[in-house]
């Protein structure tokens, strides 16, 4: 079990390391400016070599054997493995597990190990609050990370941190987890990435030039969508401020289990479909209501669920395509949209 996970992590590290090495070599021989200029002329901004990556999210696995959600995650993996061309890697958007137990996380890591390409992952609230991330970290590693790939700087943050509501209340780990499992739970309040990760982020991007293509990946959206369901990240304004120097930032997130697009300043924001169930659109007006999907039909067991793939061009334009398991998209969304 841990072999499989370690294998995919090693695979990923070597691949991320390669991208990093190229950059280092260029800088070491003092030709970075020249290289960048030439590459920019050929392939656009900062030399992005066009590629695609996929996002799988919110599998919410339960402990029962042969649970239908196991099959749905496996279907997502098969769908990504069958994409042509193959995505360079897969981001998983959090909520592998439903109740945060080790067996659920292990089951998820085994199904995800069937991916033909490397996996990068950040946690969701359902993964975390039974043991405060111990099992998750053991399986998947650090929850705060960045790497460079084909000219794009990818960042992952843990956005589901809440203030300590359990110690004073004398809650057991299970009680704490149960509180966090309910989307509309009145207890935990808004979550975010908190001070340490903000510092990490500021440090991570401080030497990057403004025209560096940046993709940031979190469980929850980096804007105030619907705080009651934690469709928000409380320190998103600080995150956006740190990233405000960049020409173009793409934010991708899980947690909302639906199609969704927004743009604030230099940042576009795109949500991932889940593989377990779709969530209703909350009662707020959207700036881009045309990016909503059809109302899911409960008699179609996997309506409103699926995966997504993003093609990045040489000029760091993204083509976002949702790949639902069923015919869940409006005509507007069927051919994808540009970010």
């Amino acid at each position: 079990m841990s072999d499989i996970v370690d294998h995919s992590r090693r695979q990923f590290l070597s691949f991320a390391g390669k991208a990093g090495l190229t950059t280092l070599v260029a800088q070491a021989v003092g030709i970075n400016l020249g290289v960048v200029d030439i590459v920019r002329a050929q392939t656009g901004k900062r030399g992005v070599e066009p590629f695609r990556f996929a996002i799988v999210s919110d599998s919410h696995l339960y402990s029962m054997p042969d649970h239908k959600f196991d099959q749905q995650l496996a279907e997502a993996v098969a769908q990504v493995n069958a994409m042509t061309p193959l995505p360079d890697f897969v981001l998983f958007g959090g909520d592998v597990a439903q109740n945060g137990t080790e067996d659920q996380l292990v089951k998820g890591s085994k199904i995800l190990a069937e991916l033909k390409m490397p996996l990068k992952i950040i946690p969701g609230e359902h993964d975390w609050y039974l043991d405060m991330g111990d099992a998750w970290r053991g399986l998947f590693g650090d929850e705060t990370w960045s790497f460079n790939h084909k000219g794009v700087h990818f960042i992952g943050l843990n956005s589901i941190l809440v203030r300590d509501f359990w110690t004073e209340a004398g809650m057991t780990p299970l009680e704490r987890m149960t509180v966090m499992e309910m989307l509309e739970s009145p207890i935990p309040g808004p979550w975010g990435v908190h001070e340490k990760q903000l510092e990490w982020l500021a440090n991570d991007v401080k030497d990057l030039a403004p025209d560096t293509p940046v993709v940031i990946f979190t469980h929850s959206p980096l804007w105030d969508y619907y705080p009651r369901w934690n469709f928000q990240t409380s320190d998103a304004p600080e995150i956006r401020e740190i990233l405000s120097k960049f020409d173009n930032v793409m934010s991708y997130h899980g947690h909302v289990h639906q199609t969704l697009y927004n743009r604030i300043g230099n940042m576009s924001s795109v949500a991932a479909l889940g593989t377990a169930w779709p969530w209703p659109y909350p009662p707020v007006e959207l700036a881009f209501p045309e990016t909503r999907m059809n109302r899911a039909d409960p008699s179609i067991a996997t309506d409103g669920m699926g995966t997504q793939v993003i093609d990045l061009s040489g000029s760091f334009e993204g083509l976002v395509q949702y790949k639902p398991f069923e015919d869940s998209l409006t005509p507007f969304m069927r051919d994808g949209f540009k970010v």
Partner: protein
Amino acid sequence: MTTNKMLKIERVLAVSALAAVLAAGTSWARAPFTDEELAAQKAALVESIALGYDLWHGSRADMTTNGLACGNCHPDTAASNPQTFPKYMTMYGKVIPFREMVNWCIENPQAGTRLDVDGDDMTAMEAYAFYLHRGKEITPGLASEQTTPIVVEYGTGFARTPTGIGVDNRP
């Protein structure tokens, strides 16, 4: 009609009007319920809503065999649209009441045992869902129509106002 008869009618009307004026200014007619009675009724309703809230979030084991509760897909009862029932649902091919829709979800996505449609638990489920949809227009609908947007007032959700249209109002 004779003049006498008309006068008699006018007298009757005048007496009635006088009675109405007197009634409005006095406590001749008692209020339908006392404040205490009203408080007790409200408490009974809230108790049923609270039971419904618990059931909606998985408190009754036989409602599921796969761990799913109503709240998995319907946070704050969103997209359940109780006030649009009875309505046509494709899985039945006919018009059904809300409680039948609840039982469909229990038996299918949740793979559990249906509730007694006349039992207190089903009433509580309805009390919770309908309470969150109070004030919404009762519009018998079609299965394909978009969900009713509800802003939740019941429950102590944390006090932050969604800005809604994709711009944070914080600096």
